[in-house]
């Protein structure tokens, strides 16, 4: 447990961070209900593991990381359930939106939803949540070089999609 900060104080800071945690979780899960569920799991985990939070680490990064890990666990458990209930459908893709050429106007959110997850999360953490590269890399558990290359590819894809959408509508 951090010796410099009371639990009450940390709880207050977590409450301050809730809107950003929810926003990140929505980019993570692409579903508002899943997002709130996963934030709730993460909060409960974080509060029971406050001793694992180093006081020199950023609280927001630490919580983003717990949110992400909670979502990975959730997906694994869904995969297990799917394997139990419908092995023949185990390979079925769930909700990966392919580039939909019939969409004539692409909002920023829609463009984000079309990014591969690793690029979407890099963009979400750096360009939406404003984390430094180092912190975003920690959240995603990858080296900084991996983070920046995902970020670059995500940006290029977003720019291409948004320009293409502008071209269609103008």
């Amino acid at each position, binding site marked *: 447990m951090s010796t410099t900060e009371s639990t009450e104080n940390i709880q207050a800071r977590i*409450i301050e961070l809730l809107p950003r945690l929810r926003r990140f979780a929505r980019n993570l899960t692409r579903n508002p209900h899943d997002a709130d569920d996963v934030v709730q799991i993460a909060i409960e985990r974080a509060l029971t593991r406050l001793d694992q939070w180093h006081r020199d680490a950023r609280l927001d990064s630490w919580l983003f990381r717990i949110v992400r890990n909670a979502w990975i666990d959730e997906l694994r458990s869904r995969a297990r359930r799917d394997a139990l209930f419908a092995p023949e459908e185990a390979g079925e893709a769930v909700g990966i939106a392919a580039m939909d050429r019939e969409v004539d106007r692409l909002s920023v959110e829609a463009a984000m939803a079309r990014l591969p997850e690793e690029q979407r999360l890099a963009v979400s953490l750096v360009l939406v949540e404003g984390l430094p590269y180092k912190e975003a890399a920690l959240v995603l558990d990858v080296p900084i070089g991996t983070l920046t290359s995902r970020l670059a590819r995500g*940006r290029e894809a977003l720019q291409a999609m948004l320009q293409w959408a502008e071209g269609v509508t103008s």
Partner: protein
Amino acid sequence: MTIPDDILMAFTDGELDEATRQMVEAAERDDPEVRRRLAAHRQLRAQLQTAYAATLDEPVPERLLAAVRKHAAPPAPVTRLADKRAAKNAAAARKFSIRAWPAFGSLAASILVGFVLGYTVWHGSDELLKTSADGSVVAAGTLAKALSTELSAERAPDRVATIGLSFLAKSGAYCRTFSLSRGNAGAGLACREGYRWRIHLLAPSANDGSAGSEYRTAGSNDSPQLRSLIESEIQGEPLTREGEEAARRAGWLAVPEH
């Protein structure tokens, strides 16, 4: 000189060291092409910021605030609650099972393997399980509706409750397996008892939050209790789609064999 795009991106992200930053600033002054590319990166950042700003103004659901304030219940009460409910249920099962549920009588003690604390919290107002007046746990809400109306083949993603398979139990009742797909969910078995679906097993998913556990291969160890319960209670084979449709038309009311 051409400045690589990743340098320009890092510049707009504020990630460059002093020397490189000055180099880009000079290029921005002198080179229209660099200005154009920087503008594109800044525009994307601004678009993203604008698009996602409104999310921050949304009211935070009370359940999340409560989760922070309550300082996370330790695991111990979960166990106690499970024990309490199982005991209550076992008492009810002793009372009711002898006549109507001979086949399940021996299972009374293990009827509820894991009752997940905070169930109603997870699902908001949509309570999926409730304890009836006689102490047995029955399906409610979305789960009850899914059990009564959905065919096993109609598996849709993002459902709260998904039906696995249906079968006629040795007791003469229709039983259906289900899985719950949110949060700390699990898999279970419900059997028709009159006009309600009584929960005979609810095993929490094996997901204990530990990282690095196996991904797809874990299907075989997901709820061995459920598998063994099905194996011991099933009469013949699982229902086909036609069998399910017929049972659904009959309200899942089967006449017990005498």
